[in-house]
């Protein structure tokens, strides 16, 4: 506002106003506000002759157009004074709001306060190609006075944010951002305001470095603004502890944990934000596969630093057939697995596998302060999702339906070999003909995953019989040595030794002059698989298999079976003292069989290396043993202990337990790789 006279003036001029809606200052920014106290609004003629400049600022909106009247009245001096100079002004108020995220479809989100919309701002996630992320509601309020006839100008503060029209709450292909700037008549803003949606286009370099600005076109380019942080959650990681070796030895430890990550690509990968279990393949674990002492360790990274992150786990509640069936949910007393945010680091949390069904594990930014993630509402309607990244999760339940395991003593047979040795056999290792084998490990187990049919995740689940040699073997030949006087008995018996290379008797036999076997204590894994004990079915018997997977109304019923038919024997003469002749042979073996379950997200049953082939649970276990003893004389056998194969101590765990909580050994070395004979005496 410029005050001046048309000729040199030697009186005074008094500036007055009829309303406080507009304030006047001595400089464009800062400066001193005029109090209109009769002193600071009284100007000298000399000043007015040279021109006095003041700066007007709207303080309150005008009640009507031109309702602020400014008057300059001259007095005194030697010149003739013309009538007062009068001008009218309008103080225009524009408001731009940004809202929290919705809590449900149809429920309008709450605008941030005038302070928070600047100082806290709103966080949105950078949009992905699949349009999974939510937009923030931005509202242009009706101008005051409403009769203002000028234009308004709305624009994003920078390229990190794009603005969309009111109809485009849910992002979709083909939607175009509004013009930048978007200029529109103030008169088009309705009483409830004009809505727009702000979407993250690229990640912020710092908190609140982006936003939206509202100006009065041709008057003030930034009359109000809101701040926005465009975040990206990335590198969501689940570290699943593997089943440790029961005894750390011979290079079998530490057992590497499985690490599963989502959001590792340079640009956001659409699959990492999808609730669909096919598009975004889940981590699949058996219930209680991890222990409280070593839960799944979760972590996530966020850009820019400082964005507050919370953790959420939600069940798949989509309508059938996607969401979990009631019978699935009822299998565990826990509706959700236990998720525990780290007390000191919000980017970390732990997870227990203590529920059953399909879940969405999400680190998220709580954009409405309710400490819960909202994405789609309970009816499945999509809302303005809070920033998130997803790791889908399926937790499987397994229960024993029936144990049909049997031992068949009749198949344990001893026979004299040519020359006076003995051979004990107990079958042919033919899984298709188990009636001919020493033991048929054989159960029906009910396995339930997620979804409406309880079968989600089952194609990533496996089972098998893991056998341990539970005690030192007692397979021993007694040889009568009559070449010495007095005649004495010599022995050759099986041992588990780590120094088999030091034996010189052939076939891992320690004979006189050899060092003592370096004994390795059981329990030892018993399998003939390659790379034994490295995960998946390498911990199971070679013949172990899932014979059938039969669909049930919910889940599947699996028949999991294996056979084992160990055999051994001795030659007619002692390995270290050839003059000694076999007179007696004992065959005692003690095993512990465990019915184990594991998963592999690659869909392979072996040591795939991927989550979670090294994480075992145990559903059922028992002891089985073989006993038989014979004397040999004159080419004939006499039974001392009748051959028998017996199962005892059948124990079912319901629910199945982490293998780490069971005596099972799933890691190398195997008994077979350590098996030798001590024939030194």
């Amino acid at each position, binding site marked *: 506002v410029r005050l001046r006279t048309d000729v040199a003036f030697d009186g005074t001029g008094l500036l007055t106003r009829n309303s406080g809606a507009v304030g006047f200052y001595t400089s464009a920014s800062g400066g001193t506000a005029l109090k209109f106290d009769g002193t600071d609004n009284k100007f000298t003629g000399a000043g007015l002759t040279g021109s006095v400049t003041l700066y007007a600022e709207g303080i309150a909106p005008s009640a009507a157009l031109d309702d602020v009247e400014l008057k300059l009245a001259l007095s005194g001096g030697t010149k003739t004074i013309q009538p007062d100079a009068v001008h009218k002004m309008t103080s225009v108020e524009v408001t731009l709001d940004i809202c929290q995220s919705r809590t449900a479809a149809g429920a309008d989100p709450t605008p941030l306060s005038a302070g928070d919309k600047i100082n806290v701002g709103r966080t949105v996630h950078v949009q992905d190609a699949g349009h999974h992320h939510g937009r923030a509601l931005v509202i242009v309020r009706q101008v005051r006075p409403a009769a203002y006839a000028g234009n308004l100008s709305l624009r994003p503060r920078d390229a990190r944010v794009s603005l969309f029209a009111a109809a485009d709450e849910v992002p979709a292909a083909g939607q175009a951002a509004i013009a930048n700037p978007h200029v529109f008549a103030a008169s088009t803003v309705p009483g409830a305001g004009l809505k727009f949606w702000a979407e993250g286009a690229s990640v912020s370099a710092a908190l609140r470095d982006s936003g939206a600005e509202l100006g009065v076109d041709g008057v003030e380019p930034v009359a109000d603004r809101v701040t926005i942080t465009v975040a990206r959650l990335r590198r969501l990681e689940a570290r699943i502890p593997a089943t440790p070796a029961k005894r750390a030895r011979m290079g079998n430890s530490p057992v590497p944990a499985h690490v599963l990550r989502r959001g590792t690509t340079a640009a956001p990968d659409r699959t990492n934000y999808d609730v669909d279990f096919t598009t975004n393949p889940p981590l699949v674990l058996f219930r209680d596969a991890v222990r409280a002492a070593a839960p799944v360790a979760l972590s996530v990274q966020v850009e820019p630093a400082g964005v507050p992150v919370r953790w959420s786990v939600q069940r798949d509640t989509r309508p059938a057939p996607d969401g979990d069936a009631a019978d699935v949910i009822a299998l565990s007393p826990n509706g959700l697995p236990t998720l525990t945010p780290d007390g000191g680091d919000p980017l970390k949390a732990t997870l227990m596998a203590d529920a059953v069904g399909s879940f969405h594990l999400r680190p998220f930014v709580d954009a409405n302060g309710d400490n819960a993630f909202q994405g789609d509402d309970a009816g499945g309607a999509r809302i303005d999702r809070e920033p998130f990244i997803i790791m889908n999760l399926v937790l499987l339940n397994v229960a024993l339906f*029936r*144990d*049909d*395991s*049997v*031992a*068949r*003593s*009749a198949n344990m047979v001893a026979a004299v070999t040519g020359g006076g*040795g003995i*051979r*004990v*056999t107990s079958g*042919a*290792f*033919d899984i*298709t*003909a*188990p*009636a*001919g084998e020493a033991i048929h490990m054989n159960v*029906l187990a009910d396995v339930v995953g997620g979804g409406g049919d309880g079968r989600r995740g089952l194609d990533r689940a496996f089972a098998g019989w893991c056998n341990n040699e539970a005690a030192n073997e007692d397979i021993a030949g007694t040889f009568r040595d009559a070449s010495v006087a007095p005649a004495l008995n010599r022995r050759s018996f099986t041992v588990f030794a780590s120094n088999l290379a030091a034996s010189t008797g*052939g*076939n*891992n036999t320690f004979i006189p002059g050899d060092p003592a076997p370096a004994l390795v204590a059981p329990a030892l894994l*018993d399998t*003939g698989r*390659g790379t034994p004990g490295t995960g998946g079915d390498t911990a199971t018997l*070679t*013949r172990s298999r899932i014979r*059938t997977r*039969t669909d*049930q109304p919910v889940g599947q*019923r699996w*028949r999991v079976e294996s056979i084992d*038919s*160990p*055999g*051994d*024997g*001795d*030659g007619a003469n002692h390995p270290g003292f050839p003059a000694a002749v076999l007179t007696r042979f004992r065959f005692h073996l003690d095993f512990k069989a465990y019915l184990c379950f594991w998963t592999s997200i690659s869909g392979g049953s072996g040591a795939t290396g991927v989550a979670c082939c090294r994480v075992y649970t145990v559903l059922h276990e028992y002891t089985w043993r073989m006993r038989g003893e014979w004397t040999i004389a004159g080419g004939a056998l006499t039974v001392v202990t009748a051959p028998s194969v017996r199962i005892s101590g059948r124990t079912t765990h319901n629910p199945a337990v982490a293998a780490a909580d069971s005596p099972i050994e799933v890691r190398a070395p195997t008994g*077979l*790789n350590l*098996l030798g*004979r001590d024939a030194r005496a």
Partner: protein
Amino acid sequence: VTNPADDSPSEVLRATHLLVIQIMEARAGDWTQEPDGLKRRVVELRVRLEHVWKGDTRQKSGDEIALAVEQRGTGTYRVADDYGVWSKVEPAAGLRLLAFCRSSSNDLAELLQPPQCQQLGEAPVAADVRVALELEMRNLTPAQLLAAAAPLLARARGVLARYVWARVREAVLADEKLFELYARIIEHPPTSAEARDVLLTAVYEELSLAAAPPRGALIRLARTMLVLLSVPQAQSMHANLAEVYLPNLTGLSHGRPEFGPSSVFGADGNAWAMARRTLASHPDWDPGGQLARWLAQPPRSP
């Protein structure tokens, strides 16, 4: 022979080729140590094709081929696994073997190598297969097959029993009369132990997986199991019957019996008494006494 199906319970039906061969000459190489701890050797064979019982071969009966096969093992008497089909036999001149093969090839040299060659059987197995093939050739109905097989199963091993089961499985589960015939073969004392074991466990497992197993079949099978407890020729199965199969079949292992002894025995008090006496004389079969308590419920009169 039809239906060379992968999932048939019968190795006779699964095989595309059943070939009788004789080893004319065998020269075994030296055992060498393998990284997995096992030993390996190659045996060079001259093999004569004697008979083609099933499938087509390029070679004719009487043709000889040279073949090198691999044997694996511990090098000792210790056997802890299936080391391969040729590791289970001692190839020596004069040995006759029946090869079970599954392949689209018609070349003997290919057919006799694993995995095409799935099993090598010696004389007893061959006898079973010959009987199975003779039955197969007759195109019998399930009832006729059961009647014809019943006496043959007295001398049979598992191969014939699995063939019989594969051929009558669906009919037996659908027809009470056929189920009765089947059950009587299992109970028949002269039926061989291995054949009995195969026939009983096959139907038991089938009923276990059925969505709605026929109640009549369950009850009839329970009776068979209880009858067998008193059959000396079934001695090798007794413990498994009492400790595993009967508790599972009746529902006792779940603590919820699905039927009682009255359903099993009807008015046949003698059979009921026999079962109780047998069980009482073998307390080790039923250490918890659950089967005895279940049997203690007296049968009702019809």
